[in-house]
């Protein structure tokens, strides 16, 4: 993975020193809150419902064991012993005290981490496919490009005060695991005439006005990546609405001006900018790329794996559900579920983080990934080591075999923590996971992406959930709307609202009716919820959700 050079280390150290002085001035009263707020946000520090929250960047979700140990140390020393992994592949600490934050940032910097640009109207943490560098279906590892974008965008003087935040995701596989079509810019590595380049997607996004991105360039040569992104953001920086924050994202700009006009403007700006990219970016890329070389895979028999797979049904269930195909057939990609039934989605205790770091060091070539689905991935585990990994995970309640199933829920922190939320997400996720575990239906239901947001900002990606749940405040009462048919992959779609929302008490029975309807409707056990929904449409699902309406309709 990428290692800081002297410039990187000096940059972060200087930034931390500045912020330490800013915190001191805020506490002494030399800075007002109005003056301090933009400074703390530039360093990832929010003030939430009960405490401050520090959002730490995990660029493209990649960590090593030392970094994971340090995150655990921070959770133990300065927080309440846990951290929350997010859909931006970041980690959030929910309870830091203001005077401690400079020390936390210094502790992060010791292991080449920071919280820069995890907030504010700037280019946010660049995300990538969490199986990057390991997935069997990968065309090319997208992380070197994500790192190039990270370095280019960090403190880019033109892009520190954009109309709104700006999110970029990069994928190197045909199967889109990075939600590229719901990002401000989505980049997909594609092949054309034997050459690899990017499909550039623009104007996707969730939130108040969810939209699927449009193709801005079907094929962009790799050497044009930075000038083309710079041109795109530059055009939006000029056109983007600053008069109304709800209309400020690039998706609205693309919608209002049309993709053809945006394309014309971007191409013209690109033509202006291209000559100033005189090769320094490519030299930088040449320096970055070797850092992402594949590890030295070991040669070893997989017999132990085969034996355990045959003899241990619990291990077999975990492998079948949580281990994905690796580029090297002797290896597997092990996803560690942070969704144990009834637990908070995305949370890991300091002890769990230490254990995962130890496993990565011992069995995983020292590599860890954070997925946007709020799980942790060991991308390179030799199959012969999977039984030992599984046994260790079991001791720490990390061996839940539910990746891609109904309890593998993306849930934002909701009103339990977030100052913007209008309803809670976490207890809803806990109830759903617990209930379907009790029913022992999860594996029978099969692949089902359920996503929950506690407000219209859609941090829980509910719009692209096969089943999406949006928590709202209806006259002082928590209310939950259901959407169906959303999809975050290469066949991306925005889910459709089914009807009136449900109270917290009525939501779970409604979901049970919905799932029962799916089990009755599917043509065969392998037909997924989404496939069934696309085949039969919304009507029978709505009838299951609102049986009293169906009765009335039949009576009329």
């Amino acid at each position, binding site marked *: 993975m990428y290692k800081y050079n002297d410039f990187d280390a000096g940059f972060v150290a200087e930034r931390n020193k500045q912020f330490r002085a800013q915190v001191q001035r805020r506490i002494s009263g030399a800075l007002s809150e109005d003056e301090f707020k933009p400074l703390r946000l530039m360093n990832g520090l929010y*003030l939430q*419902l*009960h*405490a401050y929250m520090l959002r730490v960047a995990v660029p493209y979700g990649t960590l090593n064991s030392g970094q994971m140990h340090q995150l655990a140390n921070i959770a133990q020393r300065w927080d309440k012993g846990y951290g929350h992994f997010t859909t931006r592949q970041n980690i959030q600490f929910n309870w830091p005290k203001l005077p401690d934050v400079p020390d936390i940032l210094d502790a992060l910097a010791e292991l080449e981490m920071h919280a820069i640009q995890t907030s504010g109207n700037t280019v946010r943490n660049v995300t990538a496919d969490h199986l990057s560098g390991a997935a069997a279906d990968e065309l090319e590892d997208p992380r070197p490009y994500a790192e190039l974008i990270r370095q280019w965008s960090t403190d880019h003087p033109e892009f520190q005060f954009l109309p709104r935040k700006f999110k970029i995701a990069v994928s190197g596989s045909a199967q889109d695991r990075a939600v590229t079509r719901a990002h401000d810019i989505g980049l997909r590595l594609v092949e054309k005439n034997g050459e690899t380049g990017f499909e550039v997607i623009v104007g996707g996004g969730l939130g108040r006005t969810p939209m699927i991105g449009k193709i801005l360039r079907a094929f962009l040569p790799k050497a044009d990546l930075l000038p083309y992104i710079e041109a795109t953001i530059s055009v939006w920086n000029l056109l983007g609405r600053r008069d109304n924050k709800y209309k400020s994202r690039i998706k609205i700009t693309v919608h209002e001006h049309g993709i053809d006009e945006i394309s014309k403007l971007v191409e013209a700006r690109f033509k202006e900018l291209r000559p100033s990219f005189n090769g320094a970016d490519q030299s930088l890329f040449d320096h970055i790329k070797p850092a992402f070389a594949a590890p030295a895979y070991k040669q070893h028999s997989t017999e132990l794996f085969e034996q355990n797979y045959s003899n241990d049904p619990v291990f077999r269930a975990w492998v079948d559900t949580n281990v994905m195909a690796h580029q090297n057939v002797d290896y597997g990609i092990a996803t560690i579920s942070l969704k144990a039934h009834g637990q*908070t989605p995305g949370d890991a205790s300091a002890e769990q983080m230490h254990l995962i770091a130890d496993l990565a060091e011992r069995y995983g070539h020292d590599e860890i990934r954070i997925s946007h689905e709020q799980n942790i991935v060991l991308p390179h585990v030799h199959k012969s080591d999977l039984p030992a990994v599984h046994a260790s995970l079991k001791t720490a309640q990390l061996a839940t075999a539910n990746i891609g199933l109904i309890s593998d829920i993306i849930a934002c922190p909701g009103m339990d923590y977030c100052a913007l939320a209008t309803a809670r997400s976490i207890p809803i996720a806990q109830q759903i996971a617990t209930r379907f575990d009790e029913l022992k239906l999860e594996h029978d239901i099969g692949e089902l992406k359920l996503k929950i947001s506690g407000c219209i900002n859609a941090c829980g990606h509910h719009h692209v959930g096969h089943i999406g749940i949006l928590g709202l405040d209806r006259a002082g*009462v928590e209310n939950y709307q259901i959407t169906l048919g959303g999809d975050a992959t290469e066949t991306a779609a925005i889910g459709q609202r089914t009807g009136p929302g449900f109270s917290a008490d009525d939501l779970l029975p409604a979901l049970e009716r919905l799932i029962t309807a799916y089990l009755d409707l599917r043509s065969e056990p392998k037909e997924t919820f989404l496939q069934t929904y696309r085949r039969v449409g919304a009507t029978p699902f709505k009838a299951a959700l609102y049986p009293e309406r169906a009765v009335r309709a039949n009576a009329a």
Partner: protein
Amino acid sequence: MARSFSPKIVTANALIEGDVIYLCADDTWTRDLQSADVITDETDADVRLISAASQTSVAVGVYLADIELHPDGLKTKHFREEFRKLGPSNYFHGKQAG
């Protein structure tokens, strides 16, 4: 006719810890809702809010929240304020015991 004014409290977050605080009658701050000053007059509420907001070295994000007076004590009206009072529902961090 004068507009009806529902009773309110002044609430904010503490500068150093970030946790929920309430304004007392003597313009100091408490973490105990039951010790908060209940404001029943609109003009008084405006004055107290401005006064509280000036305490920038103690409090952040000062605002008024609706409150109900029950025989067994004060109760916030909106569920958001109830969650702020109790703490998150997924962990027992001590605050919930209050």
